[in-house]
């Protein structure tokens, strides 16, 4: 299923909601959020558009470590964050970047992004090098590592301790790759569900953000009173 544009996702949601009664599911009595949650793609059956199967396994496992399930608040897998990551990379993410050369890969950090890649290439190359390092260090792909080894691997990437050049990646560094992936994962967790993550607005409910309600004339002057209403989303879900 291809959800690369907002329109196709809306159409998908609508057609699925309409199909609910035919599937023997009663919409009556369900909140819109629960209904939308039910028709959002399940991670198990989602067919990634951008990632191949091996990359997808890495992304699923990495998301699960970066924002784990259990404890307080939902995890990245509970909220379809991998779907968001895949949808963004399958879309126009990075088309805004100025990519004319020459490129100075050794530029000071204060001068910002200077790589010749769009994010798609950063993630593809980063995953490939990270997997190669996991194979060398542990004899297995990232997703097959135990929990402690996964956390350790991510910490090494984050600290830039994994030398990607040893695995043929001369442009993307491990620290940079980790930072880009983490930012995208957090964005997917906290963005409107229309982009594929934050399924059922669960992340917003957990932190107390009302989403797209966007009207607080009656509330702005009520100081230090917890806002009582749950979130709404761009497509009209209510939590």
């Amino acid at each position, binding site marked *: 299923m291809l959800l690369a544009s907002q329109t196709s996702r809306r159409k998908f949601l609508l057609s699925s909601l309409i199909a609910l009664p035919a599937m023997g599911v009663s919409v009556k009595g369900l909140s819109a959020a629960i209904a939308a949650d039910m028709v959002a793609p399940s991670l198990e059956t989602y067919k990634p558009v951008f990632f191949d199967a091996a990359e997808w396994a890495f992304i699923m496992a990495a998301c699960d*470590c*970066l*924002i*784990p399930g*259990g*404890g*307080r*608040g939902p*995890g990245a897998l509970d909220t379809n964050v991998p779907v968001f990551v895949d949808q963004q990379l399958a879309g126009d*993410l990075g*088309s*805004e*970047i*100025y990519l*004319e050369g020459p490129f*100075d890969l050794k*530029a*000071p*950090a*204060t*001068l*910002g*992004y*200077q*790589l010749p890649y769009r994010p798609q290439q950063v993630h593809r190359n980063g995953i490939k090098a990270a997997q190669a390092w996991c194979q060398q260090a542990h004899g297995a792909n990232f997703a097959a590592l135990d929990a402690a080894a996964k*956390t350790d691997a*991510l910490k090494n990437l*984050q600290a830039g301790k994994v030398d990607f050049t040893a695995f043929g990646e001369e442009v993307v560094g491990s620290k940079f790759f980790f930072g880009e992936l*983490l930012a995208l*994962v*957090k*964005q997917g967790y*906290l*963005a*409107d569900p*229309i*982009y594929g993550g934050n399924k059922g607005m669960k*992340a*917003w409910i*957990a*932190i*107390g*953000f009302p*989403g*797209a*309600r*966007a*009207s*607080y*004339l009656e*509330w*702005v*002057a*009520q*100081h*230090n*009173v*917890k*806002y009582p209403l749950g979130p709404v989303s*761009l497509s009209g879900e209510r939590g």
Partner: protein
Amino acid sequence: MANITNDEVDVVVVGLGWAGSLMSIELAQAGLKVRALERGEDRNKADSAYPKPADEYAYGVRNKIMVTPRDGALTVRHNLNDTALPTRQWGAFVPGTGVGGSGLHWTGVLIRPTPTDIKLKTYADQAYKPGQLGEGMQVQDFPFTWEEIEPYMDRFDKICGLSGNTGNLQGRILEGGDPFEGPRSSPFPLPALEDTLNTSMFAEAARKLGYHPFPNPSANVSRAWTNPYGNQIAPCNYCGYCSKYPCLNFSKASPQTAVLDSLKRMENFSYRTHANVLRVDLHPDGKTARGVTYADAQGNEVFQPAKIVVLAAFQFVNVRLMLLSKIGPAYDPVSGTGTVGRNYAFLSNGATTLFFKDKNFNPFATAGATGQMFNDVSPGNFDGPALGIIGGAKIHSSQSTGTPISTSLPAGTAGWGQGWKDGMVDWYGHSMKIGITTSCMSYRGHYLDLDPTYKDPWGLPLLRITFDWKQNELKLQQYLRKIVLNITQELGPDSYSEGYLGLDAHWDITKYVSTHNVGGAVMGDSPKTSALNRYLQSWDVHNVFVPGGNAFPQNFQANPTSMIGSLTLWAAQAIKDQYLKNPGPLVSV
């Protein structure tokens, strides 16, 4: 691709943001045939309709209504000896594009500079010893008096439905406003916005410490407003989506809400979108322009003949078009000669984030301009000379948005994993910021020119910025940090974290400050030190006028929009009253 020539107009206006729309309506109302050319897309009511703008990812993260770096990149270097590199992604600033320009996505803080700010050179000469200020500083006065510009500030306040407390009415200091503001000819059109919890806490603490806080003057209107052009602006509903967003409630004064409804109904006004102006075309003698050439969406090169050319695009774009079109002599920082590109300035900010476990700030319930600030630390109002620094800051607690992707967490919170998740649950909505927004002086080595290497999609050289922090600005940061620390201690949070520039800091283009880039084609009294005269008219090509932040000789601590709007109205009046009767230089050298 073809070469097309349009019908001639009296005035062609490049860019349809604040400056372009104000200039267009003022000159169209005088009966002139006006055509605006906007490089970006059209933006109408449908683009602002609820719930579309309530989308942090699209507007706040992906910069949906900003120009892309692909189309609008600049190059940056820290000093004359470095090789500049392009801004491949936006960071320190994010310029807009499209109809409405930056006026569509601005936050709406409409504060005036002070009378001292506009005569900073005069103040510096009086208050500082010769040689006391940093080497290479090129501070200049604005070439008009407070009494001359104030009526235009007043008019722009009314165009925007400025909401807030009056501090100085015709010389009388009024309680609740800014006692340091220059005298106003009339009070604020509308009362202040509601305070949020953080802004009322900040104001109380600041007042206790002897400062003079007042509500951020706001162009998110507090009550329904009908402005002098007959346009209606709706009362703000504190939606929480403002800075970087189009207003979903039509409550933010913007070219769309404040000007364009009336302007578009005028038969002598027209506009083209996806019209990217490539150059101003001059007559063979180089003394007047004959029109502009733009690339349209189909890739055609279109010549637009005009009797008057107004460059009203963003500061960068105006300066670049002057350089590309050879309007005025390019600045050379080595010899100190030339004027186009001279006196580029940015600004700095800094903030302390205060965390309170037991307070609900409801940060999403806010207007863009919501905040309280004080102006006690602005030029002439504190002992800058004793500290050896010139400039100042507004110190404020603002609450421009509460969207979650940009949530701040206490120091020591894990960046990911269960610890990060717990941090989000525990601390979202439980913090507030106290920030500084500072002035920035101009220096001999800080300037704009054309990059020798990098080109835009139309094959033209990018604009190059040469800029870095100087000790004056860095010492100012450290001084302000201590003031904010005192207020922080007065408020007694559970914890706080600080983000200020150290004395060894270099300009970091990855960290957002504000899109308040100024200078490069400044206004002044002498063609040796300014590209424009006091009416924003090019000293060299008299039918070219250049309203915008480019005209500021240095950056004051106030937000720029009040001055940009006022300058535009002031220049429009000079064109109507003087230039049309007698086209030629309005100031003789």
